[in-house]
């Protein structure tokens, strides 16, 4: 066996677990979901083929579908850019390598560390209109706090606010990138007479654009699938004000046992994510700057 064949073999062997996993747990299930989306299945009796009826019902006859899309879209469109922007600002502010900054970075990363069902229960209580910290805090300024999770208009803003609390990972990623930018770049710009703001806009932003791009793309994919917050805190209410798309799909699947319908919803979700990501990839060519040395 010559060297090249050995290299090929080793390569295949090392990658084989992934291939197996991909086929068994990703590719095949994806296909199965598609096939199931053309059936009506209640999990107990065998599935029945019904063609495109699920899809036509979703698109024509299902107000909750559109509602959940709208809710999820609003959530994503607000949370993703804002957290990315906040992460960037924090990274810029805490860039210098002094101890105070190290401590502050830790503090801002804290929400990410404690993310989980625990913190959702805490926020549930923080948002309580009568006894929660937020409304009590507002009361100090004589502001009458809204009903938050109990109110149809304020439930979604409450969940959005909660997500904005957590900017640790974005900050960290920007920091990692910022620290790679050599000092000379800044010094050169200053020598050329650029103001702080100009440096920020014309030098720093382009240099970290790969991070921004990654955060926006991954942020969209991740946040569009938001589930946990609604499931634990509001169960989609009040009056479906926080009915996120994945929660809606879960309800259809495991609450109402409409598994074919749920698969159709899931396939549509996949399509949406695919299309939006491709659009983002295309737009990226216009504003993302890659510097090979940095990567």
């Amino acid at each position, binding site marked *: 066996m010559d060297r090249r064949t050995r290299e090929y073999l080793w390569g295949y062997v090392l990658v084989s677990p992934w291939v197996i996993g991909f086929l068994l747990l990703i590719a095949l299930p994806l296909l199965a979901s598609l096939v199931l989306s053309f059936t009506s299945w209640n999990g107990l009796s065998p599935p029945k083929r019904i063609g495109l009826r699920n899809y036509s019902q979703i698109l024509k006859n299902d107000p909750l579908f559109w509602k959940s899309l709208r809710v999820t879209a609003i959530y994503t469109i607000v949370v993703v850019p804002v957290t990315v922007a906040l992460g960037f600002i924090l990274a810029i502010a805490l860039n210098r390598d002094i101890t105070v900054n190290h401590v502050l970075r830790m503090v801002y990363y804290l929400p990410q560390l404690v993310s989980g069902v625990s913190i959702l229960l805490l926020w549930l209580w923080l948002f309580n209109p009568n006894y929660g910290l937020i409304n009590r805090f507002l009361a100090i300024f004589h502001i009458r706090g809204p009903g938050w999770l*109990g109110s*149809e208009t304020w439930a979604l803003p409450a969940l959005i606010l909660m997500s904005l609390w957590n900017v640790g990972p974005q900050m960290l990623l920007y920091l990692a990138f910022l620290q790679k930018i050599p000092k000379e770049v800044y010094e050169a710009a200053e020598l050329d007479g650029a103001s702080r703001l100009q440096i920020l806009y014309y030098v720093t932003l382009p240099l970290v654009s790969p991070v921004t791009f990654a955060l926006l793309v991954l942020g969209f994919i991740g946040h569009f699938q938001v589930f946990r917050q609604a499931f634990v805190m509001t169960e989609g209410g009040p009056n479906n004000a926080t009915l996120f798309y994945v929660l809606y799909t879960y309800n259809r699947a495991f609450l109402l046992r409409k598994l074919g319908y749920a698969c159709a919803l899931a396939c549509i979700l996949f399509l949406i994510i695919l299309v939006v990501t491709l659009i983002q990839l295309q737009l990226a060519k216009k504003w993302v700057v890659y510097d090979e040395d940095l990567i």
Partner: protein
Amino acid sequence: MAKSRKIVVVILAFIIILTLFYFLVLDNRKSDSNTVLRVSVRDQGSYFSDQLKGVFEAYEEQNTNIGIKLEVEPWEHYWTKLQTQIMGGMAPDIMIFSERSLHTFAENNALQDLDTMVEEDNYDLSDFYEVALETGRWNGRLYGLPIMMEVPALFYVKDAFDATDTPYPKPESMTWNDFLELCRKLTVFTSDGKVEQYGYVEQAFGSGLLSWITQNGGGVVEPIVKPERCVINSPEAIEAAQFYFDLSVKYHYTPTIIEYRTEAMGDSFQYLRSGKCALFQAPSTAIYFFEQNIKRYGVVPLPHNKKRSNSIKISFLCINSKSKHLKEAWGLLKHMVGPVQEIIAESLQSFPARKSIAKTKFLANDPAIRNVFLEELNYSIVPIITDRYMELIVVLGPYLDQMGTKKISVSEAMNEISEKMNAIIETE
């Protein structure tokens, strides 16, 4: 250095392989020579579970070849959990179903037809209340033995009445008008419009709605079994719903849905604990709470308008149709409907579904109160029996919210609900 690292790696690999081995090979539970029956119940307190365990241990001693594994699941997600288990092919042998879920699973052949076993054994069903047995049937066959019923009545807090100088209600069903008047007297407002004491609270927001509707001669669906159309927008039903929502939204004799969620955190008993409630509609299971916390209380029948009526909930013990031990499960089931009903009657004060136990063990300390509940049972109905309960009831939820916050008028809401329910009933 390299050697110690090697050792660490080897040990790590060994641990991983061992655990994998354990999981993938040995984890398949070994079956004893015993038949193990799995029984799944809702969590109703440790006292109830302990009593149940006692019953099972006694049974195991008498039947040495049978082991019983009790699975207690939290209240809230009980039905969805059972549903997932049935879907996953791992349902327990004996399960509890309510009048809302039993028919769905009977329709899908997940439940064992009990009539065959009843006939084989010549089992006497005459001690069970007829309304409970009827509800446990689907397509003419019996799928569950009833064990407990939630029959609502009107509790009153004597201290709250004293505080407003109101005479205690008589042990008879009052008219809606009298009820409204009573609530007005019992509701105390502070100077800035807040409520110091509510006239009336229900065990959960909306829990009494169906009772109010049927008291006015209305209904949810028609016919009740395997409905063909929704009648929740009949004038009677709309009038009843209007009456109900007026109590909170118009008169504020009862907390609004927002207050219920935020002040009481969804726990109506909070109003009783803080002494902010005069009348409380609840089933007999609330007696334990009253005994512990209120002490000076009484129980009277529910009001009526066009007729006396109340909507009840019934729990059934069912057998998994795919159980591998049908005969043993049936044996245990028969045993359970005796002792378990007694435990339920004594410890939970839940209305047992067997007449003999209801007349003796149920509320034995307070025959007067027991009679109120026994009497209410005469007017109890189950307003909807269908295999599509889940789908239909999901329509109701958001509208309760909207009606409770005055976002939509009651008649509009009921018409929309009726439309949606009819749409569901018509599709397959």
